[in-house]
């Protein structure tokens, strides 16, 4: 038995013994996700138990070094753990932007002091982070951001406005792009800085979306005082950190689809529309659209698997995540168009109990942002054209 086989069987046994059955059910609402933070709330005692057991093993961040509260697993072990968790449908014990976004950037760009301070608190779910990138007038042109950090001794004074700050109203700290030098090109003079959301001068306001309530906020900074030591990476070179982090975000979004989860699309359609004598969906046109979609969806899943394997083999093109982000989000929009067609009249209800408060149309509308957030499809295609295809002037 290889080391990996042994790791697999031990992991399987441990999960079997430690993951409560309730934590193996599909999540039915936002509350089922545990986000951590100073004001963390557990939706159930079992959620707490599951989180604490995993945290104690370092498996909230299995691939991080042990010294920062991680599990110290290598790539193959991490993959095995994910597979074994997926096999029993185990929920993630902790979800946070600290884990998925800031963590990788801290590991790459952080000073020892910064890593020591922040990583263990992320791993243990003690601090909840939010991301301050977008600004109202910047849009896809992220680097044109205007939030300014003015030098004042050992501190910066930060003033400006961010938008699309997910869960800013629940976050303890923010990682944020600010302009420390406005004299040069727009990609220069940007710094990546971390600060406490309880600092004086920070305020937030939730954004109502076409799909209804959202985790997004507008976030305002009015002369917020932040020590200069809170800059991550080099001052004025924050764009490098941001780009590194955006790649992580894109990879995450492209993998975020609901592939394979829950009831197959064709079955959902049969549930509401019915089948003919041969068992085929009783809407031949829609059936064809679903089948074409499922071909693309299955193919994308293969591409995601291959991308991960290429990355592991060190053969991945660094811009490939942009191609995947583009494809995955466009596909997810198509999935939800199909779900709406499948639901028909019933999927038009917006507030009834019967419709779970319009869960299906709200999810559909929400997907329309997939191809905007984290870099629009147009920006992604531009990146592929320029960096992978090397087309002129792209």
């Amino acid at each position: 038995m290889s080391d990996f086989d042994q790791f697999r069987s031990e992991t399987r046994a441990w999960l079997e013994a430690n993951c409560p059955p309730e934590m193996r059910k599909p999540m039915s609402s936002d509350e089922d996700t545990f986000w951590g933070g100073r004001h963390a709330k557990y939706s159930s005692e079992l959620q707490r138990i599951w989180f604490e057991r995993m945290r104690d093993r370092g498996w909230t961040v299995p691939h991080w070094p042990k010294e920062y509260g991680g599990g110290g697993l290598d790539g193959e072990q991490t993959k095995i753990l994910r597979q074994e968790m997926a096999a029993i449908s185990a929920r993630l014990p902790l979800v946070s932007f600290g884990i998925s976004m800031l963590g990788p950037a801290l590991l790459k760009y952080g000073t020892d002091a910064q890593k020591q301070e922040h990583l263990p608190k992320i791993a243990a779910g003690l601090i909840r982070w939010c991301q301050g990138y977008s600004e109202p007038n910047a849009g896809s042109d992220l680097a044109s951001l205007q939030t300014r950090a003015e030098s004042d001794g050992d501190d910066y004074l930060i003033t400006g406005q961010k938008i699309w700050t997910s869960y800013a109203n629940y976050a303890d700290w923010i990682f944020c792009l600010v302009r420390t030098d406005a004299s040069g090109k727009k990609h220069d003079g940007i710094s990546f800085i971390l600060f406490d959301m309880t600092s004086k001068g920070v305020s937030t306001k939730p954004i109502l979306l076409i799909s209804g309530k959202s985790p997004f906020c507008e976030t305002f900074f009015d002369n917020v005082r932040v020590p200069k030591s809170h800059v991550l990476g080099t001052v004025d070179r924050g764009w490098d950190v941001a780009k590194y982090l955006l790649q992580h975000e894109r990879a995450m979004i492209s993998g975020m689809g609901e592939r394979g989860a829950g009831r197959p699309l064709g079955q959902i359609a049969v549930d509401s529309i019915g089948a003919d004598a041969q068992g085929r969906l009783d809407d031949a046109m829609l059936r064809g659209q679903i089948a074409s979609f499922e071909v693309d969806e299955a193919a994308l899943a293969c591409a995601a698997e291959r991308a991960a394997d290429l990355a592991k083999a060190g053969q991945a093109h660094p811009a490939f995540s942009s191609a995947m982000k583009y494809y995955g989000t466009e596909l997810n929009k198509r999935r939800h168009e199909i779900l709406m067609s499948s639901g028909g009249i019933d999927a038009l209800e917006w507030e009834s109990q019967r419709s779970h408060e319009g869960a299906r149309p709200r999810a559909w509308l929400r997907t329309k942002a997939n191809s905007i957030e984290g870099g629009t499809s147009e920006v992604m295609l531009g990146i592929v054209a320029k960096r992978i295809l090397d087309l002129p002037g792209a």
Partner: protein
Amino acid sequence: MPLLLNEEQTMLRDSARGFIGDKAPVSHFRQLRDAKDATGFSRDYWRAFSEMGFAGLLVPEAFGGSGLGAVEAGVVMEEIGRTLMPSPFFSTAVLGVSALNRGSDAQKSEYLPKIASGVLLAALAIDEGAKHRPLQTAMKAARSGNGFKLNGAKAFVVDGHTADLLIVAARSAGAPGERDGLTLFLVDPKAKGVALERTAMVDSHNAARITFENVEVTADSLLGDVDQGGALLDSVLNIGCGAVAAEMVGLSDEVFGRTVTYLKERKQFGKLIGEFQALQHRAAHLYTEIEVTRAAVLKALQLIDDGAPTAPAAIAVAKAKAGTTATLAVQEGVQMHGGMGMTDQFDIGFFMKRARVCQELLGDSNYHADQLARLKNY
């Protein structure tokens, strides 16, 4: 007949556009939505609409209406599509009147003048399942004494919650899927056994679910002949589809206009986003789709008014095409508006929601493309 609006139709359009643009811009709809208005539309405006002759547009002159046709109904629907103005025009003045126009003289005398003067509202109840499949009607109409007893449930009854008169498709014979055996009934929504639930819809327009439990109706409430409601229903659905298609043309055109304006205002990467060739080509493609759709819809409406045998195929084309074009228009509209287009604060999302409802209303693009294939025998 040229595929253009004639002078009278152009005047009608200008008058509708003037009133709707002035009194009921999108902000009017937003207001009703935010207030969760119990009626869901402005009765004052409906009165004004009636005075302008819109409520009785399809009502014969002998019954107090203007005696106009499908093209004119489409003209008004297109303008409604531009501002999403909630009104009973579609349910009452289009579906209701075109059904009642095929009724007995007594029925016409009783209902049509009231509709034309804006005091009576009607609603058509057909759909039962998740998709529009009129031949699948299962609601039962069993003979009972001199009349009928109705049992069943209807969904997606547009403006059902404010209707004074329900026009209900039921099965007096045959099995779901069959064309024979369908019968239409006029039912008082206050009759015993009728239970009505207003459904809050994604587009914040009005619809209801209605159940019928042993509802007794007399023989007088029959609209048309027993078991032969299929043909009557076809003619009502044809004009209804044409009207929804026209609404989608107005909606698409409006969304497109707003999007092109945004392309000329919004800067990114130091340029107006309308300078980006990829967006230009997509906009030019969408423009072409909308113009092609506009022609197909007008043609179908003209053919209905001509009583042409090719009208059903033309209507299938128009409704199918209008659905895909409106879907494309709102998708491109939201995407090109970027994050702003995702916020409730911008109007563009309203059009996306309405377009989705218009797709399902009286059959989506798939349904109508399938109808076309059936009509063409393949």
